[in-house]
C-alpha cells in the first residue's frame, strides 16, 4: 500500500473533521484518518501531537482524560464550538480551492 505524506496544513483540517463525529483519543484519530483515506494517508506521530497542541492552543479542541475501550487512561479530544466554526470555514475554503484547481485542470 503506498503511503503519502500529508500535505502541509491539511492535517489540522482532517483532525477537526474526524472529531466532528465525536471525541477521540490521539491514537484513534490517527487510525481513523488512516482508515478513512483507504490506508493511503499515514499520520506521522511526530506531526500528530504538535498539530493537536496547536489546535488546543487555538482553542478549537478541548482535551479530557477518559478511559478507553481497552481500559487504558487516554486523553480524548473534543471539538469546541469555535473549532466547529473553523471546520466549516476551512471546508468551504478547501472546496472552493478544489473546484478552482479542477477547473484549471479540465480546461488545460
Amino acid at each position: 500500500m503506498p503511503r503519502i505524506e500529508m500535505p502541509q496544513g491539511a492535517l489540522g483540517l482532517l483532525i477537526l473533521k474526524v472529531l466532528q463525529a465525536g471525541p477521540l483519543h490521539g491514537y484513534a484519530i490517527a487510525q481513523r484518518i488512516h482508515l478513512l483515506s483507504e490506508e493511503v494517508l499515514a499520520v506521522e506521530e511526530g506531526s500528530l501531537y504538535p498539530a493537536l497542541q496547536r489546535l488546543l492552543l487555538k482553542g478549537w479542541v478541548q482535551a479530557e482524560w477518559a478511559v478507553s475501550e481497552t481500559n487504558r487512561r487516554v486523553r480524548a479530544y473534543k471539538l469546541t464550538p469555535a473549532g466547529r466554526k473553523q471546520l466549516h470555514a476551512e471546508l468551504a475554503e478547501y472546496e472552493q480551492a478544489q473546484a478552482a484547481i479542477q477547473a484549471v485542470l479540465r480546461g488545460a
Partner: protein
Amino acid sequence: MGLLRRLGFLLRRGRMERELAEEMAAHREMMGIRGEGFGNGLRLREEAADVYGWAWLDRVRQDVSFGLRLLKKSPVFTLCAVLILAIGIGVNLSGFQVLNVAIFTPVPVKDPHTIISYSRRSPQASSGGATYPHLDFLRRHARTVSAVMAYRSGDLTFDGGRRVSARFVTGNWFTEIGGEAAAGRVLNAERDDDSRVAPVAVLSHSLWTAEFGSDPAIVGRIVRLNGKPVTVVGVAAFAFVDLKPSETDLWLPLEQEPALIEGSGLRTSFEKDVTLFARLAGDSTPGAAEEEARALMLEMKKIHPNDIWDGEWLPVRPGAYMASIDERERAVVYPVIGLASALVLCVLTVACANLGNLMLARALGRAREFSIRAAVGASRGRLIRQLLTESLLLAALGTAAGIGLSYWGGRYMLAATGAPRFLNPAFDWRVGLVSAGLSVVAVLVFGFMPALQATRTARSKSRLRGFFVGAQVAACCLLLVMSSLLVRGLVRALTVDPGFDTVHTLTVQPALGEHGYRAESARAYFDELRQRLSAAPGVAGVAAVSLAPLGNRMATTDRPVRTVVYDADPNYFEVMRIPIRRGRRFGEGETGACVVSESFAQRVWPGEDPLGKEFPGRGGVVVVGVAADARTVALRDSSTTEAYFPTTGGSLRSSTMVVRAEGRPESIAAAVEEISRNVDPRVRPDIELVRNNLERKTESARSGALIVSCLGVMALLLAAVGVYGIAAYTVTQQTRDIGIRVAIGAPAREVLRVAVGGFRMPVFIGAVCGLGLAAAFSAVLRRELFGVSPLDPVSYAGAVGVFGAVAAVALIGPVRRALRIAPAQALRYE
C-alpha cells in the same frame, strides 16, 4: 485570548508535559501491537511542546545557568571583568548623578514645580536679577501668579566685627517655600512686610549653633548688625532648604534693607538687583506668566520711561533648580557638559575595549568547545546567543557594582565641590535609564563583537584586537592631554607672573552707587579716601579703577576687537606694576587721552605706530601710551585686550580703590579697613586681598584639573592592565612560533617583532585619533587654561610620553618572557 491561553500553558507547563508524556506512552502501547517504531519519545515530546512557544525561555534559562557556571569556574576573570566594568560604568554614573541633582532635580522646597524666576532682558541688555520696582509692580498687578518673592544678598557686620552674609527677603519667603523654624518664628508677610516696625532677623541653624551654642533664649534678644539694633525672632530649621541655595547666615525682611544699609534707595532704585521669583497661580503656565509680564512691562514703561529698557521683557525660567540655564549660558555650559561627558565616556571606552580583549581572548581559548558544539548541531546564532548571555551576566554584575560605586563617587564629588548638604545622589528613573543604557552599550562593544568574531570560522582575529587596542590608546591619550592641559594651566595661573602685582595689593570696594552716591559726591569720597590712605604707614600707593583686579565686575567692548575697558587713575599703572612700554600714561586731570595694551595695538594697528592714533569709536580720544598686557579681569584670557581711560565721576560710583602695600598686604589690611570705614560711616567697604581673589578664581580650575586627572589616572591604569594582558596573551599564543624562530637563529629584534610588533599600527592610529580629538575639543577649556594654548605642544607630547612610559612598563614582563623562550621548551609546549 491566544496569549492568555499561552500564558496558561506556561504556568501549567509541568503538568502539560507530564500529560503529553503519558498520552504518548499510551499511543505507543496501542501501536506496539503492530510493532512499529515511535521514534525518540523525548524529541517528539519536545517538538510537540515547542508549539506552546516557550522554548526560548528554556534556552535562556539554560544559557544563564551555563553562563553562571562558567563565571564561577574562573573567579579571577569574573572579578577582573566586573571590576573593570564597575569602574567604567561607575565613573559615568557619578558624573551623571552630579548633573542630575544639579540640573534635573528641583531643590526640595514646597511644590518646586510651580516656582518660577524672572530675569530682565531687552534686545540690547540683559540682567540676571530684577529690581524692587519690578517686584512691587508685579506684586500689585500680576494675576497669573499667586505670590511674588524676592531676595537680595548683602554682607553685614555682626556685633564684634565679624562679616555675615545676609539675605533680605520678602515677608512671604519662608511660607512660600515651606521653611519652618527650629526656635521662635520665621518671617511672615503680615508682620514683616512693613518698613516702619523695628528690624528683625531669622538666624541660620549653623550660625545659631556656631555663635550661640544652640541657645533657645536667643529668640527675642537684640543683636547689632551694621551697628543697628536688630531683634532675633527665630532660627531656621536645620533641614531648611533655600531657593538658589548659598551660604546664608541670616534672613531679614527686604523692607528693612534701607534701615540697615544707609543711603540704599532700594525701593526706587533701578540699579540695585533683587532676585525675583513667583509662585504660579492655580493652573497658569510659565508661558502665560511670561506673556503677562511682557504686557506689564509695557505698562511700567509708561510710568518709568527712562528706567525700563526699550523693549524690555522678563524671561521666565523654572525657579527651584540649583542651576537653571538660560539660552545665553547654554552656549557656555553645554560644551563643558559635553566635554565632561566625553571624558567620562573615555573611561568607559577604555574599560570596554579592555574587557573586549579579555572576552576575545577567552572566546578564542574556547575554540575547541565551540567546534564541538557546532559539530553536534548548534547553529552559529545559538553560539552567539550563548556568548552574549555570558556578556550580559557580566554587564549586569558590573552595572550593579558600578551603581554602588557611583553612589559613593557622586557623594564624594558633591562634597568636593562644596555642594549644599541636601544634595544627595539618589537612584531615580533617570539614573536607572542611564545605567541600563550604559550597560547595553558596554555589552554591545565588549560582548557582541568578540562573539561574532569567535564564532566565525577560520578568520583572522587580529583586526578586532587591533581595534580594541587602538580605542584604548585613543581614549587614554585624550584624557591625558586634557588633564595635562588643565594642570599646566593651573600651574601657570598660580606661579607665573600674571602681568600685574597680585602679591602686594588689596582692594577696597565701597560700591558707592548702592549707597545713593552721585558723580560729584563719589569723586569727593574717592579724593578723601585717596588722601587718607596715602598718608597711612605701610601704604606704597593707591589708585581708583573701575574694574577690581580679579573681581567679578566686567566691562568689555567688541569693537574693533574684544577689549576690557578700564577707567583708572593715572598712577594705576604704578600701583599695579603694569609697565608702560611706549609713550606715557595720561596725566592728572588730563582728558582726551587713553592708554592701550600691546596686544590691542598689535591687533588694531599691526605694524603701525599706535601713539597719536584716535581710539576707535571715541572721537577726540588719542592714544598717548602703550602698556604691557595685563589681564586683571579674565586671568590670562589671551583672546582679550585692554584699554585704559581716565576716571569719571560716573565710573567712580562703582569703582574700587587698589592699595599697594610696602610689605605684606595683610599687615595693613586692618588699618585700611579702619580708615575706609571712617570716610563715610554709612559705607562699609569690602576689603579683599588680591591674592585671595586669585585663589577663588582658580578654584574651579583646580577642582576641574583634579577630577580630570583622576579620570586620566584611572584610564591609564586600566589601559596599562589591558596592554599587559594582551601582550602576555599574544606571547603565550606565539610561544611555538617564537621558539622556532629562535631555533633557526632569529635575533632579539625579530622576536620582539613577532611578539608585540602587531600592535604598532593600532597604537599609532589610536594615539593619532586621541590627540586629534583632544585638539578638536580642548578649545572649550580655554577659560580654564589661563593662557596655555589649547594646542600646547608640551601637554600633547607629555601625554604621549606618559602613556608610552606606562605602556612600556606594562610590556616589560611579556617581552622578557618572549626573549627568554628556549626553542626546545617552546617546541614541547602545548
